[in-house]
């Protein structure tokens, strides 16, 4: 679940990729929502970002980080729908 509060996006129902994300380039892009963990500046060891297609609801989450001399990359694709101002935990199969 993505909750948009002003210039921030919160995610916590999916155990991975939880956190507070900053929305980047909001004015330039009307078809996509681009958001990043720890602000819009790329951080050296950990870069986690999401791109939500506002027309189709497709969400791409991507995380790239360094662990020693290795690069670890995680990627997840999700299909979203807009639920408005309310939600039900049943929709997320969350118990």
């Amino acid at each position: 679940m993505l909750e948009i509060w002003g210039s921030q996006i919160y995610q916590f129902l999916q155990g991975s990729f939880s956190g507070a994300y900053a929305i980047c380039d909001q004015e330039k892009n009307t078809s996509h929502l681009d958001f990043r963990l720890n602000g819009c500046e790329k951080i050296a060891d950990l870069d986690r970002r999401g791109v939500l297609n506002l027309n189709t609801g497709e969400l791409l989450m991507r995380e790239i980080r360094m662990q020693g001399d290795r690069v670890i990359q995680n990627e997840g694709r999700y299909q979203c729908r807009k639920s408005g101002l309310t939600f039900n935990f049943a929709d997320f199969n969350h118990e």
Partner: protein
Amino acid sequence: MNSRSLSILRFIALALCIEIPLILSYFWMTGDFSVPRFNVWPISEWLINYQAGFIRRGLLGEILLRIYGPSGLIRPLYIAMFFSYVIYTATFILVYLKSGIRNGNVLLVAILIQGGIFHMGMTSDFYTRKENIFLIFFAIQCLLYLQIKSAPISFQKYWLGIYLASLFIVTPSLVLVHEAYIFLSFPISALLLWILALERPQDRYLRLAVGLLFCETLIIFLICSVFHGDIAMSQLIWDSLSLTDRLQLSPAAPYSTFGAIGSLGWGFNQHLSTLYGVVSSGGIFIWIFFAFGNALVLSYIYIAIDPPKINGSPSQYLHWICIGFLVLTPMFLVGSDWGRWIASISNQLILLMFVLRQSDLFFKPDMNPLPIQLSLFKRFISRTFLFWLCVAYGLIFKMPECCADLRTVFAPYMTYFSF
């Protein structure tokens, strides 16, 4: 049905309500099943450690890691959970036995209450959370309090010393286990100590002890607040776990920080957004239902204990129970797992009701009685009807820990037949 048959029936009901959840919990926690034995979120919370430096909630995870190391922590955690359930059940029953209340109906509804011993074992909820450690410690404090009251005068100082030592040593440790201890359980511990100080005016140091304990707890809490963690620390903690543990918790993304470990990197605003979720998900109506139901059970216990009237005035008993309730309510503004808070408050209030049965305040008149007098309630509803209402409430429903929706409010008896 004669009274002997009723007693036998009550004994069988009590034995079943204690034994079935214990047996179920034993087989579930020690058996060989492919699925996680309880929610992966609390599992990950138990595994928070100090591998990224000092951080809130890390004490028990660090101890587990030091003992079991790379061989995986989740299986030993399951066994520890089962033993914590057994210990809580044992201490709860001991407090009841030592309180001098001899009323099987009271014990039965106290066990069947939502979030209580019966539902803990039947659903693997509540006792698998860190607040079960807090409940065990409060039950031990109640036992020590009762021991101080019943010991010969020459031994009272000895038990008082043990009680104070345990408070001053264990309380800061519990804040290191989970900083919410300061809201979730510390207030009622301090209240019990304050009541003891009122009962023993000759021991003036007990009042000082309340102040010192508060300062000690607050300092540790502030330290934990400063070292609340960030996303980089949560990733390091996650990486310190064995791959087998990470795969069990998060098979789709075992290299990304997960669950409660990931939540260490959350900010204050995000925690507040989960509180908003209590309202926006409609869960608040479910919590109001269970809060009312548990209040009904607590009312029955109060009516059955039946505090005396002293020179026409009500006993101070209800006064102190209500203070116990009030000091625990701020937790509802701190976290969104309202089912956990309702369960924790209910269990602690039941222990307080048991233990204050032996308090001097039970036999002292209340000069400023509370406007809520449950004796008025008794006029409209019979005690027998209320008892059966509490039993039905305990058996039909199942309060979720958090994230309430209407699918999850009934006891899942059919699930047991699918094993």
